[in-house]
């Protein structure tokens, strides 16, 4: 009997454990299969085109409000009264008189809870009207007595969204049901009836578009015991994310724009190494918790080239206030030390020069959710791999920061395979560095005629280092970099590095000097690491913007206009 109970208990334990592990694995698979906005194609349909035309028409109108259609005479009167009331239309334009896009979401007789019961008299005929401002995320609610043509109540609510009208509900379903990726996921084209909870306001109930701050709804399609969520952005008329969840007994769990992004980036790029083979290159890459996108064990023509390259810090200082600035780490969106974090996965694209594909590029973007509002940051890391074996390590700030007097200093750690000698061009000849050392590239620095400044020797050849002096056709104003060479030590950056330097040092003390001072070591017969700290000064002058971003009102909604400042050296192989 005891034996039986014991076996039974073991069986129950194993069953429970297996079920738990299966559920965890299923969740991870669902996360990996999910799609983030930019991975999803735009839905094409006549209904969407009609909507775009309508928005285009009203955003140029004197009064930029999309009216509610098919109204009875009373409702029509309410709408007309509101359009004539300057307080009701107060937030339909910005302070410069530029139009925002607004829409009347609902007009209906007041309900008992809408108004003070004392106002519900026989002589009053009260209607409630709701308008939504797509840019400011403001709802305007009014209660109008059509008998007296007076406003009983009028208020504007920030970060509030009224119930969406039927027309937008149908539009959301259309965007989801006719989307290529949604159809692929489901394995069939869903009908309108297949969508569940289409009128759920994502900001108030079951999901949100926290990052775009757009009006989103989530048509949800059930297939067997799973639910496919399509987060539809009704401002941009695109899908912000797609994700499967288990329906379970209590219905689908919460899916939002942010958690689709963060979960997928974490599962696919923070928790696993990705391998890319292209143009005779083999690149392994992953997102770190504070050192950005790291490329490791990179080969060209099957020969090891790069041990590791990463971006360990961004130092930002402002000259108007002494000692004011930030030292930002970039990396994974959560469970990390990142202050500015990835909001989309790395992308791989062709590298083109004069319309000719000369290699490929890996890009990774990081942002603060409020960007490009002041004191929010946006950085991009870019690795360029050329078919001829060259590679370039670059990064850019895309503003906007806390002022127009900002200086940015990214700190690269570059460890080439078997790097065992470092030489600097002194204007006439290559001069070997014998000990750990640093130097500053400035206007008087002499480059070779090929624009090389350093030479890193590796087994069987090496790489010339070509600093960026604006020759790479990316509108860069040059690197002006501090360069450091240290001996390779595991504890000096092989693993994730916490912030190594303060925001605001203007001299060589950007962090890597800690691995040199106070007693520089000999570089002879040692494997070395190259640290590179460029400097960029931001600029907000019209026509000269650099490391900058602006919010521009286009077609009634804000869009970002960006002015990146790319920096970083090219590595040119030699035998």
């Amino acid at each position, binding site marked *: 009997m005891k034996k039986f109970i014991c076996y039974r208990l073991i069986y129950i334990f194993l069953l429970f454990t297996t079920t738990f592990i299966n559920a965890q694995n299923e969740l991870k698979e669902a996360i990996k299969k999910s799609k983030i906005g930019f991975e999803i194609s735009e839905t094409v349909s006549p209904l969407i085109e009609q909507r775009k035309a309508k928005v285009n028409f009203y955003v140029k109108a004197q009064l930029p409000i999309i009216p509610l259609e098919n109204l009875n005479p009373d409702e029509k009167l309410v709408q007309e009264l509101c359009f004539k009331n300057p307080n009701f239309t107060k937030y339909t334009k910005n302070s410069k008189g530029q139009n925002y896009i607004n829409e009347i979401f609902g007009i209906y007789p007041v309900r008992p809870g809408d108004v003070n019961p004392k106002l519900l008299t026989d002589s009053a005929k009260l209607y409630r009207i709701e308008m939504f401002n797509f840019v400011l995320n403001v709802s305007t609610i009014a209660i109008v007595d059509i008998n007296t043509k007076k406003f009983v109540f009028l208020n504007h609510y920030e970060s509030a969204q009224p119930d969406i009208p039927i027309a937008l509900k149908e539009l959301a379903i259309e965007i989801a049901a006719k989307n290529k990726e949604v159809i692929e996921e489901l394995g069939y084209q869903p009908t309108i009836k297949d969508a569940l909870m289409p009128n759920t306001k994502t900001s108030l109930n079951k999901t949100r578009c926290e990052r775009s701050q757009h009006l989103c709804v989530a048509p949800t399609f059930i297939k067997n015991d799973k639910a496919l969520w399509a987060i539809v952005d009704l401002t941009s008329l695109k899908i912000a994310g797609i994700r499967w969840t288990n329906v379970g007994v209590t219905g689908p769990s919460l899916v939002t724009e942010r958690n689709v992004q963060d979960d997928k980036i974490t599962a696919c790029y923070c928790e696993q190494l990705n391998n890319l083979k292209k143009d005779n290159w083999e690149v392994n890459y992953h997102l770190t918790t504070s050192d950005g996108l790291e490329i490791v064990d990179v080969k060209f023509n099957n020969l090891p080239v790069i041990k590791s390259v990463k971006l360990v810090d961004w130092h930002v200082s402002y000259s108007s206030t002494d000692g004011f600035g930030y*030292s930002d780490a970039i990396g994974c969106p959560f469970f990390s030390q990142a202050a500015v974090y990835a909001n989309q996965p790395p992308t791989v694209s062709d590298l083109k020069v004069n319309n000719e594909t000369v290699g490929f590029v890996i890009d990774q973007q990081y942002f603060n959710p409020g960007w490009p509002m002041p*004191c929010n940051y946006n950085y991009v890391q870019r690795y360029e791999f050329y078919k001829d074996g060259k590679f370039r390590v670059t990064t850019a700030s895309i503003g906007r920061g806390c002022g127009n007097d900002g200086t940015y200093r990214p700190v690269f750690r570059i460890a080439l395979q078997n790097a065992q000698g470092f030489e600097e061009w002194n204007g006439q000849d290559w001069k070997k560095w014998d000990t750990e050392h640093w130097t500053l590239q400035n206007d008087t620095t002499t480059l070779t005629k090929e624009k090389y400044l350093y030479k890193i020797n590796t087994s069987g050849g090496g790489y010339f280092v070509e600093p960026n002096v604006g020759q790479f056709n990316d509108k860069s104003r040059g690197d002006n970099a501090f360069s450091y060479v240290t001996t390779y030590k595991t504890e000096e950056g092989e693993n994730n590095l916490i912030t190594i330097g303060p925001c605001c040092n203007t001299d060589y003390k950007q962090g890597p000097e800690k691995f040199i001072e106070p007693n520089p070591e000999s570089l002879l017969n040692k494997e070395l690491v190259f640290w590179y700290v460029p400097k960029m000064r931001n600029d907000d002058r019209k026509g000269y913007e650099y490391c900058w971003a602006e919010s521009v009102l286009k077609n009634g909604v804000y869009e970002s206009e960006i002015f990146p400042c790319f920096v970083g050296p090219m590595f040119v192989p030699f035998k």
Partner: protein
Amino acid sequence: MKYLIIILIFFTNNLLGQILSGNYCLKYPDFIKTEGYDLNRAAFSTSEVRKKGLFLNQYSLDKTKIEKQFHPASWESAGFLGGMIFDRVGNVYTFSAPHVNLIDNPPIKNNNIYIVDNKTAELKLWKSIPLCTDNFDENPFGVMGLTYHCMAKCIYASSISGSKRYEEKGKVYCIDEYSRTIKDSLTEFDGFGLCVISINGKFSLLMGNCRNSNLYSVDLADNGKFISKPTMVFSIENMGLRGDDKIRKIVYNNKDNTLTINSLEFNFNLAAVLNKPETNFKLKYDLEKKSWYRVN
């Protein structure tokens, strides 16, 4: 003495709706007055823009601007700081809390609790809670919240040291006020804001959690030790600007019998909380239904 306090609390509870904050005995520091600050217009702050450490600000009569600021050197020595609490004597307690980066708050110091002396105003290390890891890649944080329990003479500290994405390894400690020894701890709970309250004479610790938007409660013995598992008593999920805020601060006001929950966005990273205002929720307790409900 203990029984007298219990009787007093029970008596006060009956008069004031049977709920009482556990820090009823708190006293503000003597140095506020000795440094020439007006208690009615002065407030402590650890979130001054572009400045690290603790500040005592005295506001103008119309409360629109800071009139003067007290900030001795030792108040900056522990880097950026989290929230603060007061004990019965007037000592202030606070903790190391990283802001944007780890330069001023190295992870090995993030489980430290500091005390500011009631008389001298000097900030010193009070208790270094043992770290639960030496790998801070995924989580550089330590102490996240403090609260004081007058009757049990202890300080509760929530710490998420050692927690990882798939492992909730945080602990809530009950630390003896005088001996500074850990009397008890609650494990595998990533606590955030804390607050001791007494309902019908029974003490419990209310706790936010760094991973979700729920408010939890755990029963306490008279000596402050934990005598139950945490149970969820309210949730702010889908409320406020963002919908997934975490509960950072919990304060029970004995005067109007409301519990104020202060929440913000927190995702186990060092992103600045700029442009992300905190949200306040006010709750009351329904003694019949034995549940919290929102009143604002």
